[in-house]
C-alpha cells in the first residue's frame, strides 16, 4: 500500500511535507526549467515588505565550510508589485503558496501586509519572518519572547489564514520563543532561519560580505537546527517546519524524526535544483522500507540509544 505523505499545518493541508524555503527559491519561476513545480508540498516566497527594497551592498554571498553566508537584505519588489507581477505565476501552479513577509522599521507594517494578503484566496498561508539577520537590527523580534507574543497576537486578529512564525537560532532558548508564538495563536513555527556569521578575506582584511556579516546556512548548521526542532517538539503542540542544512533524504529524515511535521529545503536548491523532489521520492521509499504507512508515525519518533 502507498505511504501517506500528507500532513496538516493548522488549516493548511499539504499533499506532502516538503516545501522550499523563503529566499532560496525566488518566486518559483526561476526553477521551472529544472523541476515539475506542481510536485512540491508548498512554496514559500522570498520575504516581501511593504515598500520595494534594494537590498544590501554586494558582495552578498560567500562560501564557508559546508555552508554559505548571505546578506541579501530582503531585496524584493514590495507587496503591490509582488501581487501584480509574481502572484499570477504562483496561482497557476495550483499548489499551496506561503507568502513570507517582514517589517523593516516598525512591526506595525506586518498588519498592513497581512490585511492585504488576507484578501487573496490563493495565499494559503502567511509566514512571519521575524528572524532575518540581514536588516542588522540591535535585536530581532524573534529574539524576545514578549515581542514575539505581541507581534503574533496582533497579526492573529487580522486573518483566519494559516500563520507560520519563523524563528531565529540566535537566542538562548528557541523553544521558549516557539512557546510564545504558540500562545499567541501561531498555527506553526518554522525553525530555523540562518545563524549570524561572518567570514574574512585575510589578504584584504575585509569581510567577505559587503554588509560585514550575514546569515549562515547549509549542512554546517544542521546539528544546531535538529536540536532546536527536537527541543521545540518537546515543548509545544503546534506543528514545526524544520529547516537548516537539509540536502537529501537522510538529512530530511533527521528533522522528521526530531519532530518536524514538514521541512523546507533552502541552500540545497542552489546546489541541486532537484533536491526537494528527490527528498519526496526518498521519503516514500524510506516509509515503504520501514513500513510506516502514515508520516505522522515517523514525526518525533526519536528514541534513546540502546547501550
Amino acid at each position: 500500500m502507498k505511504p501517506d505523505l500528507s500532513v496538516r499545518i493548522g488549516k493548511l493541508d499539504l499533499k506532502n511535507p516538503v516545501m522550499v524555503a523563503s529566499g532560496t527559491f525566488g518566486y518559483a519561476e526561476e526553477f521551472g526549467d529544472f523541476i515539475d513545480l506542481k510536485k512540491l508540498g508548498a512554496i514559500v516566497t522570498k520575504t516581501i515588505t511593504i515598500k520595494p527594497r534594494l537590498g544590501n551592498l554586494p558582495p552578498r554571498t560567500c562560501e564557508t565550510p559546508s555552508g554559505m553566508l548571505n546578506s541579501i537584505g530582503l531585496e524584493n519588489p514590495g507587496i503591490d508589485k509582488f501581487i501584480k507581477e509574481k502572484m499570477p505565476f504562483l496561482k497557476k501552479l495550483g499548489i499551496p503558496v506561503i507568502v513570507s513577509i517582514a517589517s523593516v522599521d516598525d512591526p506595525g507594517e506586518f498588519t498592513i501586509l497581512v490585511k492585504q494578503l488576507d484578501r487573496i484566496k490563493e495565499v494559503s498561508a502567511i509566514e512571519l519572518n521575524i528572524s532575518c539577520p540581514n536588516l542588522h537590527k540591535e535585536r530581532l523580534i524573534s529574539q524576545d519572547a514578549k515581542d514575539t507574543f505581541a507581534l503574533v497576537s496582533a497579526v492573529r486578529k487580522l486573518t483566519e489564514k494559516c500563520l507560520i512564525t519563523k524563528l531565529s537560532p540566535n537566542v538562548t532558548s528557541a523553544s521558549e520563543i516557539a512557546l510564545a508564538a504558540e500562545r499567541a495563536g501561531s498555527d506553526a513555527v518554522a525553525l530555523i532561519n540562518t545563524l549570524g556569521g561572518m567570514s574574512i578575506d585575510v589578504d584584504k582584511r575585509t569581510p567577505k560580505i559587503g554588509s560585514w556579516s550575514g546569515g549562515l546556512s547549509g549542512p554546517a548548521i544542521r546539528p544546531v537546527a535538529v536540536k532546536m526542532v527536537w527541543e521545540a517538539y518537546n515543548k509545544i503542540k503546534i506543528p514545526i517546519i524544520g529547516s537548516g542544512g537539509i540536502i537529501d533524504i537522510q538529512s530530511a529524515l533527521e528533522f522528521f524524526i526530531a519532530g518536524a511535521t514538514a521541512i523546507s529545503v533552502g541552500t540545497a536548491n542552489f546546489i541541486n535544483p532537484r533536491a526537494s523532489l528527490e527528498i519526496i521520492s526518498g521519503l516514500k521509499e524510506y516509509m515503504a522500507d520501514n513500513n510506516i504507512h502514515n508520516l505522522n508515525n515517523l514525526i518525533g519518533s526519536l528514541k534513546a540509544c540502546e547501550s
Partner: protein
Amino acid sequence: MNQAQIKAKIISNKRFKDNYWHLEFESGLIAMHALPGQFVNIKVNSSIDPLLRRPISIHGTKGPKVKLFYEVIGKGTQILSSRKPGELLDVIGPLGNGFDLQATSDKRQATILVAGGMGVAPLVFLAESIKLKKPLVLIGAKTKKQILCLQEFKALGCAVKIATDDGSAGFKGRVTELLGQVLRQAQGARQLAIYACGPGAMLKAVSRMACENNIDSQLSLEEHMACGIGACLGCVVSTKSGYKRVCKDGPVFSGKELTW
C-alpha cells in the same frame, strides 16, 4: 528558457599550460543553445566541500561538445582539473544572457574585443560567431607568458594587439591604455562597438572610455554566485535601474547601464 541540469560526460580535461586547463564535455542540449557570453555552473564533485557550484564561461561548442577554458585558482577549480574523461560532470546551463550582437550588426561598424587575463574565455566564442566582421582583439596580461588564446583569435582571422604590464610582449602597459591608443587612432573613422571581459577594474575603465567616446560597450561581469539561476539575489551589480543579477540579467551588461 532552454537551461537544464545535466550529468554530462567529460570528453577531455587537459592542462594547456601552467594553471590553465581546457575541458570538453558532451551535452547536445547545452551546445545547441549556447550563446557567446553565457556560462555553465558546475558541481565539481559530489562532496559538500566545496559546497557551491562554480560558474565557468562557455569557451566554444563543436557539435554536441561544449568547451571550457579555466584557470586553477583555488579548491574548486583544483578539483575540476582532477576530473577524468569518461566521468560525469553535474552541469547547469546554458545560463545568463549572451553578448548583444545587435550592437555590431551594422556593416559599417568595426568591432573591438578587449580581453584581460581569463577574460579571453568567452571572447573566443564571441569572435568565432562574428568572425566575418574580423574584429580587432586586444589582449592584456601581466606578462607574455600569461597572454592567452592568441592563436585561437588569429586562426579566426582577427587582428590581434597585445599589451603586457611588463612590456615582455606588445604594448607596455595596461590593455586599457592600448585601447585608448586604438580609439585615438580610429578617431571618428567608423562606428565602433566594444566587447570586453576581464577583471572588474579593467571593465570599469573600458566602459568609462566607451562612454566618453560614446561607443556602445558590452561587458561580461563576474560576481560571487550561490545559485547561478537568478533565485538567491546574491550576485547583484548596481545599474541605472537598480541592482541587477549578474547570473540572470547578465553576465553581459551594456556599459551605459552600469553605475559602478
